[in-house]
């Protein structure tokens, strides 16, 4: 606490105006004393001796003249071992512990430690007396689940420090001093396993940032093959309500090939988080054999929770993501929905009576969104290891119209765009990513030329289908009709995927590569088909077997049998390859071989 105190002067929704004496800084945290409760708040504007604060709680009962204490600290999160598996609100209060203390309902003014101060860990020192260390350097490690959690020099310490002492290997409480350091001026610091970091500041203690290029496998065919996401990259999923944004993020949070997943449930339904909460402790991560919960952190500030902490929640999430990146891990942050975060900004901006931009969003919306996604990246750390933060955010555009400020601002900065379409979700074509409108700037795990060939079929097939609406099936040539059937085939057996099927729901890259060959074979072949009815029947048959193929276990008997049947059926009608495809295939083949 600083000496600065203030008094409430006005209340307007969740914004309180405070008259203060002394010094106050922007984004500083203060507590408003209401009866026996202290309500956490953040300074969001200062004018003369008045500060506007957003209150992270309901403001009912606050009165003019109530005391405000300023802390001198910016809004920060606690970093240290024990974050994994936790479920926090937007301000990093552990929700299960809040429930133990307060029951079914959230209780205003109740704040708990993010990491239990009595927890202890087996500490192995990684530095020694006399060593020179800087912010972010590892002084020791503790085993957190399957990870070697690095205990680091706090990121905010400037300059070089010399290790005065470090404890020997053993079990220590998170609050025990494990290392003492001093700088050239004789300033000393006692380091524990915990430290704080202000959420709105990116962690930048690394050597170099790289261009994202390695695929971040989601096991969703359409994404990995057609619209890939790279580790350290960014992507967004805009879509109208009910199109499948949350389901897509949920399956990604399960199946993505990353070390750690941070889920930021930002201003959406509480019920959706519950599924994750209850299922993850039961599900095993095939990569590690441990439960999924052990690689997950959930930041849950759902729609009926205070709006100001919703605004904070995405920053809390990305800060924790950056922290684990500093350990040489690949972290995926999934934020659902960034629009709710933007709306929280809009609400505050309105109360501050700032000049509104488009749809009343604040003028700084774009730059705030851009700097959030900028916190993704692949970095080389000082010890040479690589870490990454990948950010995927959903966007909930008003009216499902992508021409709105949040979607547009996001599209400017992300590396991949998975736009969900109402038409596709209405037709139950899941995942409802629009295959013609979506894009990715990242390389696919499957040969780009082959993929481009398939996309071309999709584009041309769609043209035929549009044309058919005008000239009818009878006005369409057989060749065009077959093209159309091919694009429909690609759509129904490869782009569409049954998320709830134990097999089809997650498809490894190995399997994608394998089944893609057969898909390509169908798309690139010229078939001996004489009329539209026989063409339709033929593709129906292919589809039927391919769907069964998709739901049969990898390399099982059924899988082999379906594959054989498919090949047989293709060979029955195949006249040869489309010459263009033949060329691509040869090039791709020699590239792979």
């Amino acid at each position: 606490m600083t000496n600065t105190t203030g008094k409430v002067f006005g209340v307007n929704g969740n914004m309180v105006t405070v008259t203060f004496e002394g010094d106050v800084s922007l984004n500083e945290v203060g507590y408003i004393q209401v009866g026996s409760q202290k309500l956490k708040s953040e300074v969001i504007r200062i004018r003369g001796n008045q500060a506007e604060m957003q209150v992270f709680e309901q403001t009912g009962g606050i009165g003019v003249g109530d005391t405000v204490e300023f802390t001198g600290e910016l809004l920060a999160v606690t970093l240290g071992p024990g974050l994994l598996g936790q479920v926090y609100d937007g301000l990093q209060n552990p929700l299960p512990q809040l429930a133990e203390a307060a029951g079914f309902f959230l209780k205003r003014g109740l704040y708990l430690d993010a990491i239990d101060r009595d927890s202890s860990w087996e500490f192995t020192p990684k530095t020694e007396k006399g060593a020179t260390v800087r912010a972010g350097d590892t002084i020791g490690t503790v085993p957190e689940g399957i990870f070697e959690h690095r205990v680091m020099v706090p990121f905010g310490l400037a300059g070089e420090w010399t290790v005065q002492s470090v404890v020997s290997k053993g079990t220590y409480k998170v609050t025990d001093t494990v290392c003492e350091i001093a700088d050239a001026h004789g300033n000393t610091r006692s380091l524990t396993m915990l430290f704080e970091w202000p959420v709105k500041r990116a962690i930048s203690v690394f050597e170099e940032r790289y261009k994202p290029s390695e695929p971040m496998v989601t096991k969703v065919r359409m994404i990995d093959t057609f619209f890939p996401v790279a580790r350290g990259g960014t992507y967004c999923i805009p879509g109208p309500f009910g199109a499948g944004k949350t389901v897509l993020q949920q399956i990604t949070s399960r199946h993505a090939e990353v070390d750690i997943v941070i889920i930021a449930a930002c201003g959406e339904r509480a019920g959706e988080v519950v599924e994750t909460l209850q299922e993850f402790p039961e599900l095993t991560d095939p990569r590690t054999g441990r439960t999924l919960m052990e690689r997950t952190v959930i930041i849950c500030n759902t729609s009926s929770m205070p709006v100001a902490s919703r605004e904070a929640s995405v920053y809390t999430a990305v800060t924790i993501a950056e922290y684990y990146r500093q350990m040489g891990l690949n972290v995926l942050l999934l934020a659902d929905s960034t629009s709710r975060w933007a709306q929280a900004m809009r609400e505050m901006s309105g109360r501050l009576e700032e000049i509104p931009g488009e749809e009343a969003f604040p003028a700084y919306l774009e730059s705030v969104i851009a700097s959030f996604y900028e916190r993704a990246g692949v970095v080389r750390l000082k010890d040479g290891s690589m870490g990454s933060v990948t950010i995927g955010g959903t966007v909930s555009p008003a009216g499902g119209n992508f021409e709105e400020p949040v979607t547009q601002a996001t599209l400017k900065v992300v590396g991949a765009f998975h736009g969900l379409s109402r038409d596709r979700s209405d037709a139950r074509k899941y995942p409802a990513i629009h295959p013609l409108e979506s894009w990715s700037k990242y390389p696919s795990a499957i040969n780009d030329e082959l993929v481009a060939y398939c996309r071309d079929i999709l584009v041309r097939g769609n043209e035929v289908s549009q044309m058919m609406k005008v000239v009818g099936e009878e006005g369409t040539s057989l060749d065009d009709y077959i093209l159309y059937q091919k694009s429909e085939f690609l759509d129904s057996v490869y782009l569409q995927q049954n998320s709830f099927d134990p097999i089809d729901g997650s498809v490894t890259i190995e399997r994608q590569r394998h089944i893609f060959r057969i898909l390509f074979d169908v798309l690139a072949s010229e078939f001996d088909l004489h009329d539209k009815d026989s063409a339709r029947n033929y593709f129906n048959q292919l589809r039927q077997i391919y769907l069964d193929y998709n739901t049969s276990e990898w390399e099982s008997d059924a899988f082999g049998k379906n594959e054989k049947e498919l090949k047989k059926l293709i060979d029955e009608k195949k006249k040869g390859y489309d010459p263009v495809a033949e060329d691509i295939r040869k090039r791709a083949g020699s590239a792979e071989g």
Partner: protein
Amino acid sequence: MKKVYSRIEEISGNVITVTADGVRYSELALVTSGHGKSLAEVIRLRGNKVSLQVYSGGRGVSTGDEVQFLGKPMQVSFSENLLGRIFDGSGRPRDKGPALEENLIEIGGPSVNPSKRIIPRNMIRTGIPMIDLFNTLVESQKLPIFSVSGEPYNELLSRIAMQAEVDLIILGGMGLKYDDFLFFRDTLEKGGAMDRTIFFVHTASDPVVECLMVPDISLAVAEKFALQGKRVLVLLTDMTNFADSLKEIAITMEQVPSNRGYPGDLYSQLAARYEKAVDFEGAGSITTLGVTSMPGDDVTHPVPDNTGYITEGQYYLRGGRIEPFGSLSRLKQMVNNTTRGDHRALMDGMIRLYANYKESVEKKSMGFRMSEWDQKLLRYGSLFEAKMMDLSVNIPLEEALDLGWQILAECFDPEETGMQSKLLTEFWPKNVERSSEQESA
């Protein structure tokens, strides 16, 4: 005794401003005017200027009227005595019964800790195939009926209410037409459900501010009953009126509107109410069915749009039927895996084919020749509409599933349906007349 202020400095719409000390945000006051007494709620504090929204409206309020602060927020009486009673948006009796004062509870309380929620698990059977089969309603779900005016949404609401197995029904009426209010009352009375029903009704002729209170009062009472182990069904009709009241107050308060005049916090305001739907572990539950009328049949209008982003699906009512497109129960997958093995596949498959049917209809309307496949789809579509979509159909889920296969078999070859072979072997009906072939032959 609290001080009485007898100088109102500003009256704008339903909002009045007085100079007063020691007032707390959200506190209630009693405004006494020549027309009687009304509650008012503090909605802004700035120094000693206090702005209040007057529940009975600003009309007729005079600068000389008295304002007395009550030192407490809005409350409502909670007890078994509420059952069978009818109240207005401020909790005053609308029937001839006595006013209730005992056991006051606060309204608009804190939200449930997400970590205390449980996964919804019980299907609510309605006997309506478009719901039970295609978009199953689940206990603790929040789900609106999207509808243009003139559709029988209140009929649908009351039919579901009567058929659903719940312990208690709370009807929150907002801007309800008096006739509709009478319709609900009569239906529930006839069905013998009146003694397990509570009404909080704001009618179209009541003051706007009282409309704002209806969801909070209804849900606060529902929450208490749910905590006592009751399965409560809350019906909120019409939430668009609620949103319009919010808009009216926001404009009076000179807030910058975000979209077609609605305030920027419309989403949060609606969510605060809908998110009250819950299943308490070890106790009861709240299921919320709302009505959201769509001005101009426009689903992108801010009210249905924001609602869709909050609720767990929606039922589109159009032409007296629940439309398969756009309608969605997002919780259906929580329960439809334990109903019958073919439920999910049939649900998806039939809708996919119905989408194809719609395309064929479009082609037909443009005068194209109908292929054999189109013919099959057309036949399918008309059977589907007549046997499944018609709201008069009232059959249990299992019968609806059988009927689904029957319709498919009457129209298609098995492999044309895109269903997995496994299911086709198990469920494809034998010996079904394929009349479509005779037609096209």
